[in-house]
């Protein structure tokens, strides 16, 4: 029994040590953010703030990133909602109305999820310039929706595939049509899936960098591009940078903390279990 106890203690010590390591970057961002300007020194980087909590760094960081946080928000909200609706249609049709070749079509769509976007970047830029959506947020929203089709379709398809066909057969006998079944049976059942997909697309688009940096001009930069730019400039103090980074990461962190269950389901769907 005591051997088991010793083992358990060892496990706890190991887990706690690992947890501290994993939390180190966040600890640094938080304590640096709350220090007053005169206490910021690379030598005392790890020390807690000694003269109370100050939010000057966060204010300075917010001033740097405010327009970009707004850009990201304006881009991500329509993107996540429209993506989810589209994915829900596709997933429903591919799960419940299979036709010859529908599995092949699904696999071909799915491949779009894995491609390195560098391999389509030149045509994409030329095309966006041609349709005059280059440089601004609506174009970025469109691009995120289109390249989001594979993952959103996958998540919804797996979800709908898990709903029994009996309910569908019964509805068909009662004369419900393809759209009727979606509207009155499938859609009302899809709330959990919508949560998963909206959260997933929100996080993805918020964190995305390549499309954002290539397809938008400076006035419309989302927060990832602005943050990278801020980090590369010599004009910004590192303490302000830490606070700004925390602000840029905060929306997805909060989503994770409060809606982590759904976030995890999105992750697992991304692991291709279907």
């Amino acid at each position, binding site marked *: 029994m005591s051997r088991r106890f010793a083992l*358990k203690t060892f*496990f706890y010590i190991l*887990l706690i040590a*690992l947890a501290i390591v*994993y*939390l*180190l*970057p966040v600890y640094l961002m938080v304590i640096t953010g709350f220090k007053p300007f005169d206490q910021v020194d*690379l*030598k005392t*980087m790890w020390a807690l703030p000694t003269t109370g909590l100050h939010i000057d760094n966060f204010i300075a960081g917010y001033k740097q990133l405010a327009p970009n946080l707004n850009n990201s928000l304006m881009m991500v909200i329509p993107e996540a909602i429209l993506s989810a609706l*589209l994915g829900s*249609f*596709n997933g429903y*049709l*591919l799960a419940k*109305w299979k*036709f010859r070749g*529908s*599995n092949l079509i699904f696999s071909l769509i*799915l*491949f*779009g999820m*894995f*491609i*390195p976007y*560098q*391999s*389509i*970047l*030149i*045509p994409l830029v030329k*095309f966006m310039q041609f349709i*005059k*959506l280059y440089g601004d947020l*609506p174009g970025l929203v469109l691009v995120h929706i*289109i390249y989001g089709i594979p993952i959103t379709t996958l998540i919804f398809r797996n979800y709908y595939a898990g709903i029994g066909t009996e309910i569908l057969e019964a509805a068909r006998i009662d004369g419900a049509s*393809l759209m009727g079944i979606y509207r009155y049976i499938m859609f009302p059942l899809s709330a959990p899936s919508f949560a998963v997909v909206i959260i997933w697309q929100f996080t993805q688009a918020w*964190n*995305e*960098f*390549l499309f954002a940096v*290539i397809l938008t001009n400076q006035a419309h930069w989302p927060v*990832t591009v602005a943050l*990278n730019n801020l*980090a*590369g400039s010599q004009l910004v103090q590192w303490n302000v*940078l*830490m606070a700004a980074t925390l602000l840029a*990461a905060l929306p*997805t*962190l909060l989503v*994770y*903390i409060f809606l982590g269950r759904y976030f*995890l389901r999105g*992750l*697992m769907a991304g*692991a*291709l*279990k279907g």
Partner: protein
Amino acid sequence: MYHRFELRIPQFILALVLMLVGAASLFILSNTQLIISGRNLTSIGLLIGGLVLYSGVLVIVAMFNNETILSIAMLLPSIVAVAIFVYGFIGWSLRVSLSKWKGLNPDYTWVGLQQYYNLFNNDPRFIIDIRNTAMFTVGFIFGCLIIGLGLAILLDQRLKGEALFRGIFLFPMSISFIASGVVWGWLMNPATGNRITGINLIFQKLGLTSLISLWHSTPQPWGMAFTVIPAVWQLSGFTMALYLGGIRSISEDLREAARVDGASEIQIYRYVILPMLQPVTLSAVIILGHMSLKIFDLIVALGNKAISLDVPGIYMWVTTFDGTNYAQGAAIGILMLISVAILVVPYLIQNMRTETEL
């Protein structure tokens, strides 16, 4: 099942209205521009007009009572979008990579595989990229698998606070590679002497001076190995979740049976659980592998486009959009695609086959 056309008057009127509105908006927008608060949204307007017109067509198609055709027709917009934006654009990129397009004006003069030949034979930077990607991929996959499996086994011990620990190991996944790169850039600060800071400062305070490191500023090829640290920080929790899911899906009866047969806990993991986790490992390798072959933003934020930490994703960006060498950029993009396809396509085909059997 019967297929016959059934004219339903209300739906028919709806279809006519949709088609009329769609066609009218297409007609108007092709002659004028749609400007909303200073933004030229003509193309978005055309897209919506087209979709409205198409939805009218769908209402008519629905009257034929043939669900297969309706299903295909409803999928068509997404299929077309993917066909153009994924496959069409890949084809277009491929064509650019076989040209000598350099400079802002497109030049599609055919040069065959010249761009690819140059990358492999006359381009030291691309060779560095390959070496760096290989280093990163190996370190990243092994790091995530070993730490992920270790964490999963630790959390499988039914300790108190399991959910909390799981959350702590998983949260870095929700942060962008850019934010992660910025913070880790400061943690892995290579400054020494009296400017020592970051993790090196902790090592110094703890007396572990032998661990003080130049991190990703270490001379190549080993500097690249340190860029794996933030990546593993972000995705080992994900790997842990995959493994933990796998372990928990193994029935307790099986473990109990092994215990009755006299197997120790370690033997149970070694001979019962690990072999059963092979499919999880395969999925994890494919997901992590395709991420690392594409790695881009993390290295941008960490290395600030330093050549020593260059990867194909960054080289493609720089050579195309800073150097306007479109043909070379396209060739790098296509090579990245091929490397990912080699990893992913067999898996997708396998996945499709098992589904068809079901």
